[in-house]
């Protein structure tokens, strides 16, 4: 299938000198696309740029063959965007605001507008509070409002920046459901810090760090590649530094109160290490250490 969204060599430098994106190239087709990356990696910057809310310094982005910087309006009428952080006009109810945004998005038929707004309110479980001012919503409720507005109209490109932040587990599941359902016909780009979500939802993903794409592919394939290479061992806290010096440590984590160190290696690195099945977070951490650490030899692909 053709790639609907093509990003070529996108770079962005803010006026304070921060290079938020450098030479980012991605090809994305219909379905959910996960973006992972540490804080400050440039995920939001990339998404804002794709939403044409800011311009890039160089590079090209085409959506359905149209250059989005040359004709931002063409993109915007098929865009659904949920920013990482947003506010709303005070003293307006969820319903009023959704109606307003629906008008701005160009739903000209009143009945269609009403139906879609009602549907979205129900899907995001806000129907019962639809007359309450959004500015008095709880954090999670507001986030759901954000999701609802991103889906208004006829979005072909949905960009959601940490959509599940603040959602309770039930709401999160509900949202994932909705997203998968929609994702079949449109492009959905989703950034998150919950690696499992990407694993569960996204057929494709990329990891961003320091403004660069350091890894991209299908989560299953990437995880597969690490099969048999991840080793773990329970150690004492003071030993961490020693291991980090000696071995290609990708992460440490605590399970059941025990400090576990994960190491990437083709064979058992030391006695006491046991092999463990790789998961996507191992891919994530190994990618990060590979990109940021000095031990270039631990490349696994």
């Amino acid at each position, binding site marked *: 299938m053709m790639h609907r969204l093509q990003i070529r060599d996108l770079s962005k430098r803010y*006026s304070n000198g921060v290079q938020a994106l450098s030479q980012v190239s991605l090809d994305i087709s219909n379905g959910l696309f996960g973006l992972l990356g540490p804080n400050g990696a440039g995920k939001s910057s990339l998404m804002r740029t794709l*939403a*044409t*809310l*800011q*311009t890039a310094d160089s590079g090209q982005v085409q959506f359905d063959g149209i250059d989005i*910087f*040359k004709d*931002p*309006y063409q993109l*915007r*009428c098929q*865009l659904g*965007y949920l*920013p990482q952080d*947003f*506010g*709303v*006009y*005070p*003293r*307006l*109810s969820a319903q*009023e605001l959704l109606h*307003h*945004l629906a*008008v*701005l*998005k*160009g*739903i*000209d*038929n009143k009945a*269609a*507008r009403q*139906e*879609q707004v*009602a*549907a*979205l309110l*129900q*899907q995001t479980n806000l*129907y*019962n*509070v*639809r*007359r*309450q*001012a959004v*500015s*008095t919503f709880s954090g999670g409720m507001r986030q759901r409002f954000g999701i609802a*507005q991103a*889906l208004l*109209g*006829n*979005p072909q490109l949905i960009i959601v920046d940490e959509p599940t932040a603040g959602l309770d587990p039930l709401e999160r599941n509900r949202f994932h459901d*909705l997203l998968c*359902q*929609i994702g079949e016909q*449109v492009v959905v780009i989703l950034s998150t810090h919950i690696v499992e979500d990407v694993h569960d939802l996204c057929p494709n993903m990329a990891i961003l760090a320091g403004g660069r794409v350091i890894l991209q592919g299908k989560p299953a394939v990437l995880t597969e590649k690490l099969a048999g290479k991840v080793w773990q061992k329970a150690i004492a806290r003071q030993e961490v530094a020693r291991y980090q010096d000696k071995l290609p440590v990708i992460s440490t984590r605590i399970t059941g109160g025990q400090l576990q160190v994960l190491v990437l290696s083709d064979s058992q690195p030391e006695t006491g290490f046991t092999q463990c099945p790789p998961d996507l977070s191992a891919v994530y951490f190994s990618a990060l250490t590979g990109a940021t650490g000095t031990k270039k030899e631990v490349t696994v692909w």
Partner: protein
Amino acid sequence: MVKHLMLFESRYHLRQLTFMIAGALFLGLGMLIAQGNFGSGELHKNAPYVISYITCMISLAGIFVSTLLCAQVVLRDTTYDMNALLFSTTLRRLPYFIVRLTGLFVVVLLVLALGSAGIWLGTMSADTASLGPFRLRYFIQPLLVFSVPNVLLCCSILFSVALLTRQVRAVYMAGVGLFILYFLGSILGNSPLMANSSLKTQENQLWPQLLDPFAITSFFGLTRHWTVDERNQQLLPLAGALLLNRLTWLALAGGLLWLTYRRFAFRLPVATSRRTRPTTPDSPIPLPYHRVSVQTTGRGYSWRAFASQWRLETNSIFRHIPFLVLLALWAFLTAVDLKETILHGPYNIRFYTASGYIVEYLRPMRPALLLVVFYAGELIHRERATRMHELIFATRVPDTVLWCAKTAALASLIASLVTVNILTGIGFQLAQGFHPIEWNLYCSLFLYSGWPLLLYAILIGFLQSLFNNKYAGMLLSLAVVGVFLFGNRLGLHSYLVRYAATPLPDYAYMSGWGHEEKALYYYLLYWTAIAGLLLLAGAACWKTRNKGSFRSTFRQQQRPRFTWKFIMTALCLSTCLAIAIFVRYSAGHQPLVREALYSWQASYEKTYRSRVSLPQPSITHVQLATDLYPGQRRYTVRGQYRLRNESSQPVTTVWLGNDAAVTSIRYTIPNARLAEQDDRFGQSIYQLGQPLQPGDSMTLSFTQEVIQSPFVPFNSEHAIVDNGSYVELEKYLPYLGYQEQYELEDAPLRKKQGLPPQTKLPATDSAYHFVTMDHVISTVPDQQVVSVGALQRDWTQNGRHYFHYQSERPIAFKFAFSSARYALHRENHDGVQLNILYQPGLDYNIPLIAQAMTDALDYGSKQWGAYPFQQLTLAAIPHYPGAATAYPGVLFSTERISFMSNLHDSTRFNSVYAVTAHEVAHQWWANVLSPMDGPGRAVLTESLAKFGEYMAVEKRFGAHYLRRLLQADNNLYFALRGMDHEQEQPLYQTDKPYVYYQKGGMVMYGIKEMLGEDTVNAALRALIAQHGYPASKGRPDDLLQLLVAGTNQQQAAQIQEWFTGTATYDNAVRAVRCDSLTGGRFRLTIEVQHGKKGTGKSAPSADTPPDLVPIALYAAPHITWDGSTQPLYRQHYWLSRSQHTLVIEVDRRPAVVAIDPLGYLPDEDLSNNYYLLSDTE
């Protein structure tokens, strides 16, 4: 801790862009005002009075700074969502309160102090001749007396509102409310800053002074009567009413702060929102989500987006309780102001509450600009401020649509204010129960005041679009708006350079908005075109502000397209260019602004003064044929002068000139050749083929045409309008020789134009040059023409209405005419035909006017000599600089004052009667007797007409009714003297109206009180006999000699002093004992204070002559006096010392003792002229 907080707070304040801009603006403002027109004449530019005045004004402007800084800095935690962090620290209530308040106060004060520094800088650059000594305390004292308490008051109110509501908008509303409070204060306190307040006459009362929160009333009230010297040397002492005012408001501020401290919530503000109706937790069958098709092109989409955004924005304005409160306050202020303005004209005149006058008054809506500035800042930065911008801007909606929606929301705000104004006006009319409500006039307010406000809203929006910081934008907007509003004083004279400025014609029922209405539309269109450009520019700037840098957006817009934006830009540009060119062209070479006129006058003097002594013939007969075309704003005159050489030398050249308002003129002089022609000044000099010998005559013919451009400022003496044209034709006919009246008189202006101080030409010609006249005037068929002379006949021919006027006897060279659809009231009075021509329908005052005319005619004929004509006509005209004017046998009187004054309230003085009598008296004192040119000439016209006016009023209504007029003139004399910044000249050589009108009339009345009415009138008859036409013209000295003749030495000295001195009185009286005697008689011991000011000595002394002062006792207190009041006792005393004790016996119990009870001796404080005896004494 507190110290650290304080430092942090002040650093935070000082780092604000708003503070920096405000500081710079105030420094500039101080300099600008100091360099402005303050301190003209003998008043120093750095006089303590001037500095205090400016400091007062600047402290008012402090309201804006306090509002903005309070909203920005005090509410910063709310704005930036820092509250949660702040309130969870260990910060305590009291330090928080004190630090925030002090920070605000100190910073605002600092800004005002910068203003004072600006004044100082401004005076530095002034001409040293106009400066007095520099004293630091002149700057510090007003700062302490006015600025500190004012700032404290403003800050306390705003701070309290901020803490109690935690809403930025509520703070704005409070700011505007403070401004309204100031307006109320100045209306009630009769501040001279308000229109036509100076002519209102009021004593300094305590209440208005106390009620004014900014003490401006006190400042003006207490300094109103200060002489130039006092203004140059004195500071207003902080005592009495002023001190009380300051303490009251400080106490109020303190109380408010204390309350706020007790009440304010030192925790997270709970978001207030509309109560949410609990929606039934229905669980409907879940609707599935579908994408729906969108339509994001075409007009329908833009329109829907616009409407939706507009609705949200307007709701955000109107669904806000403080705003509604403010609207109510606004309506209240308008009503109070209307009441004060419509019901209290000069001399306490009260007008009928006619729609036209109310609409005229409601038209300027400057305070609304404040609201526009605040709301523009709020609306334009709303997306960013609420952090909703990413949601909105990620949609397809074009920025222009959003921008227009915001502008439209501002337009709705403006429309609501205009509507409130209209409703208030209508409510006021209904409450007063007068006149039909003229809806079309009221609705025109949307155009006349709403539209310019909208233009301003667009400008302000554009300014805001240049800033990321809305407070900086607001401040800049305020400054720019200020520059344009007061542009006329800053050198922006033309309407083409003053944003949204148009002429503001006055309303008259005769002529509607009159001459300048058309110009108004052109200027509005011009500024609308410019606003169109600003709208586009604003949208574009706002867009770049929302999306990163200029450069990148520029890249987006690479393809130049001929979209509607280009078309609109081109259209706007060409419209304003076309109008600008049209305005210039249409005005011909007439100066459009005052500055151009000044340089024209100066050049005229420089070019022609040298030829002043060129001998010229005099005009002896005038034959005119005038055709008036009101609809075309045009008239033509075909005329002929008979010229006679009345000098002793032969005349070889005829030097002709015409006024700049004359569009074209052609002269025909037989047997003469045009030697020189100067189009700029309209001068033509003809060389006569044969010199005109002394005593010989010749004929001059001319044809002239006047086409009046609506862009030339309205001249009420040369008004051609659809109905109610009025032309003082003699000023626009050809004249001979040098015209001294073109010379600039104002000394600083002369200096600016590079002219030496003016030297008046010595008046040598005392001969009357009266002429005979024959005048045929035609106008449109349904109008009538009123002019000088006896109407021979009128007829209609070729669709025009002709009138033939002819002089019955030689008259002065004065030929004014008016043309209108008149109704006629005619009476015959002792062989004189009285005509009153008025606007049909406005006939309320006709009987009274007729009464005044006959009374004054009778008085004059009996006392001064026969009335010289067969008829006396009074015609209504729409406008005139004064109330009315007198021509030989004709009076022209303004519609509003004469015909629309409401005389039903008999407790008010009837000034229509007085004005009419005054103009009738001019038939003698201007037309029978004319003064010779020279200083003090107006004494023989205005002072004597004023005397006639007083006498007519006294005869008709009684002396104690006249008292109101005398006291009003007394107050007016001091008020106008206070506004004139030059030393007063004595009556007999004055050229100041307040001296020859008010004081002159009072002096004449005083002489009448001293010598008796008959003696004075005998002297006046003698004056006419010696100097009336055709003898030689009179001088003030002649009057003085005749009055003094036959008097004793004391009386002569008194008359001399009144004519040749400038002293004023400080009289007071007090009863010390009142004993009841047997037989119901009472013996009163009274103490008289007799002070005299302006003689160089503080008290009367041996070398000043005694003054004749009446002292009287009355049975009823003076507030109850009316025309029929008679004193129990009245006697004139010669007072020579400053203290006198008198014992008087009367046979009824007196209620009040009075010195100068009628108030004809100029006395600043008339209230202590009366002493009420309480019953127990």
